[in-house]
């Protein structure tokens, strides 16, 4: 059996000095790994206050029916390509609204990633870690929550909005502390126990929390600070979140907004995401499921893509209008693209070899398409880019310098992004 895919030689490049240097920081109590971040670097990163809207398109969206159409070719499918607000860039006719905001966007059409199964691709793409380093990297949301913190909002730094059940996504944190996991709004609704039971009045709530805070303060006196700090941290965050009911009250959404974003689930969730970003949440992930179109791909995308088109264009427009796009990084991503070949079920299958991703904001170049595939879309024809290149780029614009920032896990210093890769120059201003 060959496990060569599990490791990368970069691990050897690190010196013994780095290894033992890092040991000094290991083994803290309640604060866990958070303490390992050099305070100066952390303060600098946090001062810039970037945010992220991460749109996860689960199952694998077809690049050919969206960002990289190959109209009238063997594998091009039935749809046309349409011009966009950027001369020379065409996208699928299924995205007419997005075409009008193309001048805000950057597309990468030369992605070549490693996994063609969901079980491997979903986590690896979201961890930005194309090779296994023997530890479990955090998903991007947990990583950004760790590096950027809550930005002083008092809100959970990582919120996920997705169809289905809500709760908490601790597994996203990988080797980071569970507190960097996502608070999950299932179907836009807050996790269980977010709403105070009616029996507990405002006064009672104030009083009981006053009592709790007093008790913790007395307990902390004369002890190491970490346990009390950790306890207060989660209680304060819980109470802050509970007080922001408007963030999860879907009944109070503006009707004109609903019309623009779409009354469908994805539209409502992206609208809710915009409100969370406005409230100061650092990283908002919106997931949409059901894109694994092995069968009837074209009617499937005809049904699915316009929903994304409408809501995505609306949120980009809104962030731009509010002046937020300079600081909010918007990403749309799947675990892979879909095969050029059309199977007997008129579907497209999994395809990591040559696919696309779109992004905007936070100082990325606007109105460009980076890289290209060949005429029939069957291979990358420019320099292939892996998810590690994207993570370098994204961390860079978020102010987390991927060339100098490191995690320390047990006795390993670990780069935040794959250290054989680099940021994509064309995307940087």
């Amino acid at each position, binding site marked *: 059996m060959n496990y060569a895919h599990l490791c990368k030689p970069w691990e050897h490049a690190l010196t013994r000095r780095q290894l033992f240097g890092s040991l000094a920081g290991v083994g803290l109590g309640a604060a866990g790994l958070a303490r390992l971040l050099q305070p100066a670097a952390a303060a600098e990163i946090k001062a810039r206050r970037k945010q992220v809207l991460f749109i996860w398109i689960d*199952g694998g969206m077809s690049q050919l029916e969206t960002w990289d159409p190959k109209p*009238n070719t063997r594998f091009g499918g039935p*749809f046309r390509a349409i011009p966009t607000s950027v001369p020379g860039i065409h996208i699928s006719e299924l995205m007419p609204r997005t075409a009008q905001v193309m001048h805000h966007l950057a597309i990468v059409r030369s992605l070549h990633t490693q996994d*063609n199964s969901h079980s491997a691709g979903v986590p690896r793409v979201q961890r930005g870690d194309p090779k296994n380093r023997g530890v479990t990297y955090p998903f991007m949301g947990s990583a950004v929550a760790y590096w950027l913190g809550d930005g002083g909002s008092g809100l959970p730094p990582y919120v996920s909005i997705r169809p289905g059940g809500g709760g908490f996504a601790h597994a996203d944190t990988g080797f980071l502390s569970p507190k960097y996991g996502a608070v999950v709004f299932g179907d836009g609704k807050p996790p269980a126990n977010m709403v105070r039971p009616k029996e507990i009045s405002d006064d009672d709530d104030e009083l009981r929390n006053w009592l709790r805070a007093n008790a913790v303060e007395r307990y902390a006196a004369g002890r190491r600070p970490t346990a009390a700090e950790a306890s207060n941290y989660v209680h304060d965050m819980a109470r802050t979140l509970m007080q922001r009911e408007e963030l999860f009250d879907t009944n109070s959404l503006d009707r004109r907004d609903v019309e623009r974003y779409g009354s469908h689930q994805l539209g409502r969730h992206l609208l809710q995401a915009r409100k969370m970003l406005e409230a100061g949440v650092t990283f908002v992930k919106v997931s949409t499921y059901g894109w694994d179109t092995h*069968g009837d791909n074209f009617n499937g995308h005809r049904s699915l893509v316009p929903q994304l088109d409408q809501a995505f264009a609306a949120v980009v427009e809104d962030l731009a209008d509010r002046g937020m796009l300079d600081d909010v990084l918007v990403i749309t991503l799947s675990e892979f693209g879909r095969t050029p070949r059309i199977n007997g079920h008129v579907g497209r299958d999994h395809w990591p070899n040559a696919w696309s991703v779109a992004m905007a904001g936070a100082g990325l170049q606007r109105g460009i398409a980076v890289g290209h595939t060949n005429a029939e879309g069957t291979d990358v024809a420019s320099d292939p880019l892996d998810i590690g290149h994207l993570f370098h780029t994204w961390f860079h614009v978020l102010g987390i310098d991927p060339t100098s920032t490191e995690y320390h896990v047990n006795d390993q210093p670990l780069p935040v992004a794959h250290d054989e890769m680099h940021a994509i120059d064309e995307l940087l201003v």
Partner: protein
Amino acid sequence: MPNPKELLARYQPREAHVLRLDSQVRSLRLSPCGRLLAAGDCLGRIRRWQTDDWAELPPLAGHHAWVDNLDFAPGGERLFSADSWGQLRCCDYLGDHPALRWQAEQAHDGWVRGLAVSPDGKLVATCGNDQQVALWSAAKGTLRHKLAAHRVDVYSVCFHPDGRRLYSGDFKGQVIEWDAQRGKQLRRLDAGALFTVSKIQEVGGIRTLAVSPDGATLACGGTEPTQGSNVRGIPTVLLFDLQTGKQTQRLQYGKVNDVFVCQLAFHPDGFFALVTSGQPKQGKFAYHFPGDAQPFFETTELPNCHALAIDAPRRRMAVAATQRVAVAGETALDENGNYQDNSSPIHLFELPDPNAAV
């Protein structure tokens, strides 16, 4: 009604020839003159073969992307075709370079999903993803009516044998009966069972529509979907009594992996033939008399059948399927390092001589 044995003696298809292609086929027709087989493919071409020796003639160019629709005028004078970019064309079809008679560049905004020629050959009906049904003069391509009563993509159209009534069926399973001459809506029939919403995806649609030769029955084919993305559902035909407008039968062909009835067509003797395509390798070819509970012929020999053609007078049928050995592995290359495509072999069948001893 003859017994099944007698029926099979008359109609059981025998494979006579297979045409191997290098591309995938979306539509298939045998000309009324008996001389030509035409197929619309995924590269904007109409492929043509002479039926006497199955030699291929040069393909007809001019379309874009998917040529989903083909039909001959009943007298065999012309070939009408439409593509997924909205173009409708009318041309001659024999010889190396048949003449183009007329074309409508934007017959629809986008994908034309259905095309039918009236029994008298005077009207061409089309429908598409622009939610419209259109009626054209067959002779000159003049637009007669744009019918805008559907709210979603319109997937299929067919004429009644009386030539006066037209049926259109849409994505959500709604059928509208039209007065074809006046362009007026007459009534609606509900085949909504052929549609569902799965997660955030709308799935299904009336993929094929046909009226029985006696004019009494409308058949709507598609699937009763159970899920989107990798679509699953039971291939289903709903039959409607056109007298009452009521659904009379719900006929199903297999399990949820069998998925779509892609096309059905009535034989002049009263039964309909249908082909299905589902998950890779799932495909059926069957004959069914309205009123019967079961098809009297069915084969699963052909994987993923997408199109069907009947030439009853010459006892001939054609089915476009998919090559049996699907390309293995999603990144598989052939021995020359080329990315491999799927293709649609066309299976040609002969039906037994009805005068032969039973």
